[in-house]
């Protein structure tokens, strides 16, 4: 299994460059249907908009976006297309809104000749970023329901009399699946932890840790007490990945003369020191990380022969990953129960795909063992530990804000 993990790590390490630039591409739309009028309020993060338009000047980005949205946000009805109406003054058909820092906002009014068989189409951004997700709110017949527009679901048929059905749990489950599949550091972390698996029951601990982490995150989100600082959290996940590498390294050093000095902890502390110089505002998180690393590696040494501690790191990683969705839901202004429902589906999807990945890895390892494929274990572990430490440190430093 460890050999397979090495191969997968090498493969994914090659794609790590993509993960550096990886940022969640999301937008937010509110569709208000009132008689024959449809009002669309569309919010797009500045980073997504600038990447889409290729312009750094806000005014030019706004102008280009207005034309872009007119082409890609449309409404149809039984009587054909509903045109976007001119909003008077010198506004034109797309009115730019002031929606706070970090977001571009636009408002478009559509007037339909026949308000029956309405069809909302949202094709913006998907052609450029297929992973893009638009969190929509549909307000119709006195009900507000959450919906999702994705590359595979770019239009929504509205019922004439009934309330619009909200997006199903399966839709959010799909988001969770894609989130793990499209995020390289999640893959690498999971495969890295497989290097620590020694017994069959350890796989069970790994899955249980994942479930516990996501469950705890859902519970914390449902209280609404705290909000995540997401870029910092992403960098902390890098630290956890490096910690897994350090645990593997420490295990390999057991009994060696070098063990007199806690090299893995020293390495990580140096990385944390560099991070502190780079982003002093994150001092508390980094000092906490330093204490965690030192304490954890010391505990792990003490526990070595009896029990395993590393599933706790997996649980921490899953816990932090559980805040990915809530972190982007802010501008959608959804009620907390709806957010918890969405998060439940999202986390279920993430757990399912993680379990599937682990299962595939275990299956492949069993197959390789049956084929009597072997590789030098110490080298494998050393290389993987180095990869994990390197990638984790890289993500820690590059994503820290």
């Amino acid at each position, binding site marked *: 299994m460890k050999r397979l993990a090495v191969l997968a790590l090498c493969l994914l390490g090659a794609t790590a460059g993509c993960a550096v630039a990886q940022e969640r591409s999301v937008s937010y739309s509110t569709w208000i249907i009132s008689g024959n009028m449809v009002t669309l309020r569309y919010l797009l993060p500045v980073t997504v908009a600038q990447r889409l338009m290729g312009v750094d000047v806000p005014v030019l980005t706004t102008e280009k976006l207005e034309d872009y949205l007119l082409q890609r946000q449309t409404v149809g009805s039984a009587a054909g297309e509903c045109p976007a109406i001119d909003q008077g*003054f010198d*506004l034109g058909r797309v*009115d*730019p*809104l*002031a*929606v706070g820092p970090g977001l571009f*906002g636009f408002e478009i009014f559509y007037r339909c000749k026949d308000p029956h068989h309405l069809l909302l189409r949202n094709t913006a951004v998907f052609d450029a970023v297929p992973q893009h997700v638009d969190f929509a709110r549909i307000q119709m017949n006195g009900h507000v329901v959450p919906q999702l527009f994705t590359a595979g679901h770019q239009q929504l048929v509205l019922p004439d009399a009934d309330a619009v059905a909200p997006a199903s749990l399966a839709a959010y489950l799909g988001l969770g699946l894609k989130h793990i599949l499209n995020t390289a550091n999640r893959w690498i972390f999971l495969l890295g932890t497989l290097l620590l698996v020694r017994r069959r029951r350890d796989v069970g601990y790994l899955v249980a840790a994942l479930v516990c982490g996501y469950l705890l995150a859902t519970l914390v989100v449902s209280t*609404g*007490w*705290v*909000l*995540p*600082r997401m870029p*910092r*959290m992403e960098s*902390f996940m890098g630290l956890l990945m490096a910690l897994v590498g350090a645990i593997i390294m420490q295990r390999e050093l057991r009994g060696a003369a070098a063990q007199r000095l806690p090299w893995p902890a020293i390495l990580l502390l140096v990385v944390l020191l560099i991070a502190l110089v780079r982003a002093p505002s*994150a*001092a*508390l*998180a*980094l*000092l*906490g*990380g*330093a*204490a*965690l*690393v*030192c*304490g*954890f*590696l*010391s*505990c792990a040494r*003490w526990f070595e022969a009896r029990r395993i501690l590393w599933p706790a790191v997996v649980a921490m990683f899953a816990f*932090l990953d559980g805040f990915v969705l809530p972190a982007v839901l802010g501008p959608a202004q959804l009620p907390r129960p709806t957010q918890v429902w969405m998060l439940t589906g999202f986390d279920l999807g993430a757990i399912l795909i993680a379990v599937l990945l682990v299962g595939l890895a275990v299956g492949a390892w069993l197959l390789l063992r049956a084929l009597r494929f072997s590789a030098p274990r110490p080298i494998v572990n050393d290389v993987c530990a180095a990869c994990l430490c390197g990638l984790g440190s890289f993500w820690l430093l590059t994503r820290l804000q």
Partner: protein
Amino acid sequence: MSQMSRVRAFLSRPQRTLVLPALAVVIGLLAAALGLFRAAPKPLLVVPPGYVALVNQKGLLLNDYRAQVELETAKHYADVTPDERRRVLREMINEELLVQRAVVLDLPETANEVRATMAVGVNSQVAAPVLAYEPTDAELRAFYEKNRQNYATSGSMTLHDLVLGVGGYQNANQTTAQAQIDAAEAVYQLRSGASLDYVMAHFGFRPSGRAAQGEELDFAMKLHLGAQLYAVASTMRDGEVSDPIVAPDGLHIIVMERHQFPQVADFTAVRDRVYLDYRTASSNRATSQNLRLLRSQASILLAPGLSE
């Protein structure tokens, strides 16, 4: 067992190797949690004291409400009926909704009327503390002395502006130098008592048409004569004849019939004006100081070729 021996016993136990790292893990997790999360803003579910309503989490002040009720009904707050209070509250909520909508629509950036109103509002706010101060008579008098020219009554003139054309179709061969000789002679004769009509007929002068016949106020005369001729006329006294003045349309001679010079009004007569001017000047000073401050803090980039 003494305290020291207890500590020694603890340090010699193998468990100490676990206690400290475990403590480090717990402290590390707590510190990291503090760094990785921030407290979520709590939505206001109850109207706080001192407010009458919350509109999208934005409060309407009780004081503003009472003042609005009294303003709209022209009654003391205690005498206002519940229906009237409800109506005013509804209006205030509607207004708040419209203001919030205006902010979302970015009207301060897009609507000229809103921008102008906002600029006036800021200037008024800046000037308010200055205007609240009542100046003493001594300060007003000092201001008056410093700006005496602003409190002068307007003067008036009755004059004749004669012009001798040069190089025209009637006297095409006459050079400016020759015309200046004629004009000097005309001036001499006018100062010697020759009549205006005689000089005009003899030397070919004609009225320039710039000055109206009869008395004109100084500012109007300045407008009509132009800066060059007015500069000469403004220094002339009754009955004086100016030296020839070379202008693009010929040589001018100004004959001042009557000149009433401007007179500075007495302080007591213009005290009210001085008071208003003093307040205006103070307000302008405050707003310009505010602008200087804003400019010192601002980053302003001008397009190439433009200046302000």
